[in-house]
């Protein structure tokens, strides 16, 4: 426990303190420790894990809706595309750039970029449909230098390099766990077909033969997105890890 004593200001001390303050000011005036980044002309070098605008690759996406479920600000809405698949669309007016969706996406379909300094003139434009999220957007870039914070010795140096920082970092896809959906209580099945209609990759099929309906899950097609598990009214479906390469 450190005891903090408040200094008693006698005449001499205050003169010394005045002199100290003036000398510090003078020293800074002669050799300033300026750390200003002149933004329009210089841009700050951001680390590769920076959380900026989000890019989307539709061919990887399995429409498992998890990104829309996890978004704290309800900024991601699934949009029905022309090919009858639901793809995410981000409303940047609500997005808080927490990148929970990027961390959630099982197939790295959502990739972070370093684009952050963007301004809109009205609210409707901020809603980016799925088609707008695939190719990197073009933003106004007036900078000639990139400034990086570097600490040499005991002081902060702003290292200025002339090149333009690449705003789309390469993200290598992260580990995935292959799972598929199975039914663990077939006698409770209603044969209602909800799982068939909601499976994005149509892995479950249903055929009616006379007074009997046969359901079949195609293990190869099923990607394990878990939508049928939630949709089934009797909760009899479960995700199971693929034994062979799931190790």
């Amino acid at each position, binding site marked *: 426990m450190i005891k903090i004593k408040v200094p008693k200001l006698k005449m001499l001390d205050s003169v010394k303190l005045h002199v100290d303050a003036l000398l510090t000011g003078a020293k800074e005036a002669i050799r300033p420790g300026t750390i200003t980044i002149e933004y329009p002309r210089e841009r700050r070098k951001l680390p590769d894990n920076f959380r900026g605008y989000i890019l989307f690759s539709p061919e990887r996406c399995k429409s498992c809706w998890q990104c829309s479920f996890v978004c704290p600000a309800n900024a991601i809405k699934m949009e029905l595309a022309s090919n009858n698949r639901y793809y995410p669309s981000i409303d940047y007016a609500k997005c808080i750039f927490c990148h929970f969706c990027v961390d959630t996406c099982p197939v790295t379909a959502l990739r972070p970029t370093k684009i952050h300094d963007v301004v809109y003139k009205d609210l409707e434009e901020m809603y980016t449909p799925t088609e707008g999220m695939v190719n990197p957007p073009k933003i106004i870039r007036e900078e000639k230098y990139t400034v990086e914070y570097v600490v040499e010795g005991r002081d902060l140096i702003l290292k200025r390099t002339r090149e333009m920082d690449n705003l789309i970092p390469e993200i290598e896809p992260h580990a995935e766990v292959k799972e598929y959906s199975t039914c*663990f209580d077939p*006698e409770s099945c209603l044969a209602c*077909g909800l799982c068939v209609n909601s499976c994005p990759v149509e892995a479950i099929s249903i055929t009616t033969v006379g007074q009997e309906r*046969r359901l079949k899950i195609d*293990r190869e097609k099923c990607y394990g997105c878990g939508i049928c598990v939630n949709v089934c009214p*009797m909760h009899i479906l479960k995700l199971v890890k693929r034994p062979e390469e799931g190790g």
Partner: protein
Amino acid sequence: MGTQTETLEWRVKIPEKKIEGKAWLNLKKRVIDTGLCTHCSACALVCPVGGIISSPNQEIDFPEWEENCIDCGACIRACHRWEYTPLYDLGDYIDLTAGKSKRFKGQDGAMVTEFMASALEMGLIDRALFVGRDDEWRPVIYHIRSVDQLKNTRVTGTKYSYASVLPELKKAVEVTKKGVGVIGTPCIVTGVRKLQSEFKVFRDKINLVVGLFCMENFYYYQLRAYLEQKGVDLKKLVKMDITKGKFIATMTDSKVSFPVKEMDEIVPHGCESCTDFANVLADVSVGSVGSKAGYSTVVVRAEVGKKVLDYIKDKGYADFSKVNPEIIEKLTKLKKKRIKNIPEEYLSVAFKEDRKKNRENKENKENKENKENTE
């Protein structure tokens, strides 16, 4: 959930429809429009798109069934009045006593609440479905998980109006770990048994079914209009009771009673065609008939009911006394007469054969007696 076979292919039998069109249209034409529907709302439980609504204020209905119904036939499988096998008489039972709970106060002996509370304590079930009421006696379903939660909520006392217990049962079954206990009138208990026969998840998860004796039940809105017409203010109502053919409504400041016969015009069709008074299919049937005032008659029909009864006995939660079964027999006979209200073609095939068999051996018996008398 125990050892389950993880299959990728499975078959499901679906019932064959009687008329062209969607499954709901069949159910509507064959059960609801003909007045057989007892509002047990099993179909509302099982409907995958959740379109069938079962509110105490109106008949079972599926508003926009043309677009929403996906013709899966689940509601037909769940409905116990599709192939109607009427049940009657006191049914077989292991034990017949009358009990009065020490811990709870209820309609009579509060044995229903006692059974559920002890089952919770034993760990047979971890959740019980009770029908409570709000301050205008509208039935509200409560998921009770512990005995002291039971003390806080107003659940005891009969409500004499339809309560959509089964949709809540589905929510309970989805979440429970040990098992669910459910209380219900004969039509609800028959609905539960039909669901258990059709779907395995209900067989595993529903461990205790307590049935109530029931002459007839009412729709809430009709009962309320009728009682208000009779001068009963629901806000001040304390207790409703039907004993010795009289309907007694006791309010905080006054009491109104009138013969039950007068209420016949608001008895729903479902109850007119229902013959099961003593809740034949329940694990335990409880009612006020046949035991002295303040006691409830308890008919234990299943092993699980016996286990709970023994638990109550050695824990001393209730004291017991005699029951004279004649009154119950009289009421079951009275209700059995309602078989004639059931239109012939809706009776299930199985029921028709064994009725033919009963008639034959009754005739042989009469022939034999005539023969003995004549000798």
